[in-house]
């Protein structure tokens, strides 16, 4: 049985789509990036007929992402000006390197995370002699796709029932309740 590869994230970048489809490439000032977490919410239930309890998955946490840029970026700060009911596209790109790859073919693997969301910005306090940074959050994410290499890892679309699962259940449920034809 082959072991799982040891994939180390060697670099990442964040791209935002500005007005008119322009690309804002933040690689020169990018500090940290955080992918949306894949997390469920649970209700704890102890059946009357049991002496134990179980956490029942009820729903998933909303998608939220974040990054920070050193300095101030007028073009990125402007993305706060997003009218209600609209969202902007953001992509986080990463490069994974397989520590123990035996051939060059599968040594580098790309991570692509694309989401549509709304941007919040908080500029740090400025102190003399320090490098000012700005913390950004991407909230109200309505759709999200994470792929690593050619494999789709996570897909979310609130309009089509939320998170896509591996067995097609979300699609069947969506059909049953009339979300999709």
């Amino acid at each position: 049985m082959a072991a799982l590869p040891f994939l180390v994230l060697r670099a990442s970048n964040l791209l935002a789509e500005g007005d008119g489809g322009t690309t804002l490439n933040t690689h020169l000032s990018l500090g940290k990036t955080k992918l949306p977490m894949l997390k469920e919410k649970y209700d704890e239930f102890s059946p009357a007929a049991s002496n134990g309890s179980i956490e029942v998955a009820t729903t998933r946490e909303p998608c939220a992402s974040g990054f920070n840029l050193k300095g101030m970026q007028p073009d990125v700060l402007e993305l706060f000006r997003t009218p209600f009911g609209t969202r902007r596209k953001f992509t986080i790109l990463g490069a994974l390197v397989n520590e123990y790859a035996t051939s060059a073919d599968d040594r580098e693997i790309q991570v692509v995370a694309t989401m549509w969301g709304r941007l919040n910005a908080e500029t740090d306090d400025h102190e003399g002699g320090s490098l000012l940074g700005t913390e950004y959050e991407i909230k109200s994410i309505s759709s999200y796709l994470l792929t690593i290499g050619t494999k789709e890892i996570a897909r979310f679309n609130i309009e089509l029932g939320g998170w896509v699962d591996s067995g097609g259940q979300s699609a069947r449920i969506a059909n049953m309740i009339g979300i999709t034809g």
Partner: protein
Amino acid sequence: MSEPDLSPVKPYPGYPGMGAEPLQAATPASPRPRVEPAEPRSWSTTIKLQWPLLVDGELLEEVTIRRLTGADVADLLIGGAADVSLNVLARARAAGLHPDVIEAFAADDGEAFAAACRPLLPASLVALEQQLLADTEAQI
């Protein structure tokens, strides 16, 4: 309800992004050529406005008009606004100004600008314009 476009934001045109083929080191398929005019001076001309304007609060005294390329003409034909004539759009593009600015020129400046543009516009557009003028004069 439509599927949102979850293709990645492209850092540069032609970026392959994720998909069927795994991305190796990012080398473009073939390097793009660097193209520039052989005689830059014949590609642009500058005129001074006799009656300068303030555009968004900034003084506009000189207008540099550059020769239109095929790509410019294609864009004009595809994306022209319905309420602005093709000639104004073409001149605005050649001067790098908004059509409203061209229309706000004092009449004499407007004529000088139109005359300066004429050698730098595509011949077909100039012919169209002359045809229109001839038709209008015939009607008058």
